[in-house]
């Protein structure tokens, strides 16, 4: 079980491609990777979850904490390319009403 994130910067847009499984064991790794992002006003962070094949509620915790930090810094966060299973997780928990979640995203342009 592993999680891996790679970033691509494009002006005011920072795209992070997350790959793997996000659970109790891998969540701390992802949290650390997200913590080092230099947040600034006007920056949009787009996290592409198309290669996340499993996520439990600990994973949600990582995104919620990161979302709060991003809002505090007046930056924006988008989660894109979620599987049906992940979309449902965000819907049940009411987070899809709060956070910006898209089935597609800027990353689709590069495919």
């Amino acid at each position, binding site marked *: 079980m592993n999680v891996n994130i790679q970033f691509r910067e494009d002006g005011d847009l920072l795209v992070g491609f997350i790959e793997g499984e996000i659970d*109790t064991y891998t969540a701390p790794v992802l*949290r650390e990777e997200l913590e080092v992002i230099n947040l600034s006003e006007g920056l949009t962070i787009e996290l592409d979850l198309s290669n996340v*094949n*499993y996520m*439990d*509620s*600990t994973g*949600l*915790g*990582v995104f*919620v*904490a990161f979302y*709060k*930090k991003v809002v505090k810094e007046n930056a924006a966060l988008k989660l894109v390319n979620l599987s049906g*299973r992940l979309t449902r997780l965000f*819907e*049940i*928990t*009411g*987070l*899809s*009403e*709060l956070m910006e979640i898209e089935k597609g995203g800027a990353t689709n342009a590069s495919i």
Partner: protein
Amino acid sequence: MQQLKKLYKQILSDYICNQNESDLYIGQNLIKQMIQKNVSPEDVISIHKQALEEFYGELPETVIHAYDFLIEVMVHYGLKVKEHQSLLVKQEEMRIEMDIAAQIQNQLLENEVPKTKCTDIGMISVPLRKMNGDYVHFKYDSANYLGVAVTDVVGKGVPAALCMSMVKYGLDTLEYANSNPSYVLEVLNQLIEKSVDDSMFVSLFYARYNLHSNIFTWSSAGHEPSLYYNAAEHTFYDLEAKGLLLGILPEVKYSQQELELKENDFIIIMTDGVTDFRKNEGFDAREKIKELALSFQHLNAQEMCNTIYQELLKLQDFKLYDDFTVVIIKKNKLF
């Protein structure tokens, strides 16, 4: 110490002469005694060096330097070993304290399943590890209302356990089982939001059942939707709600909905550990639970809970991946 030194020299001298296995064995036993007498590793090397000097007179200067170096290094080695041992002792102490904390936690959170005339209630809650991240709270005012909360704290270990205690006392201070479910969630949300860190939150399903009118009123904060079985229609309904998890935003409004429970209807409230089948992608756990509930609806609520647990565990090769909690409320036959 003098005695040990003498013995060491004797055994070393014997071994140098005939390299006998038995001398090695005697040497090993002597080391055990030395450990008991708190002889440090560098002292043993020092004894060894003195012995060689006695056997062969003056040792070459380079060899003496080499021994001095080894003695210095071993001083630090000995210190590190001691440090490591004391950490192990501390770790053991902490483990014992954690066990005690888990026991206290279990006692604090213990909640008896109420017996009512018009309903049959069953419950099973199995923790994945020592401390359960799921919690079921019943409130029963025998005259009018039954209140039930099923909750799941995200996060593990001590922080989750502390958060759980907060939820319990929050529910206790709301005091009456007749509070509106939406109000219960709003108050708990404020309490939790003030007190926990950004990555911790709680999902909670709260229902109030009116024992006279049979009206079941429910509200949900980010919780796995419960299942409602309408016996007359032979149909299951998802009790869907998009209420936000508790502890994320300070002011959140929750909606509540209601339904009337009729004879042989039942409600299944569960946590995500019940539906989260990690290794079976594409498998619809909720459909499986409906299927199981239908086949075992002739059992009482507690037996239904136990059987569903056993059957689901079997499907996951008898391995839990998360805390597992199911509560079933069945409407009894009318008297």
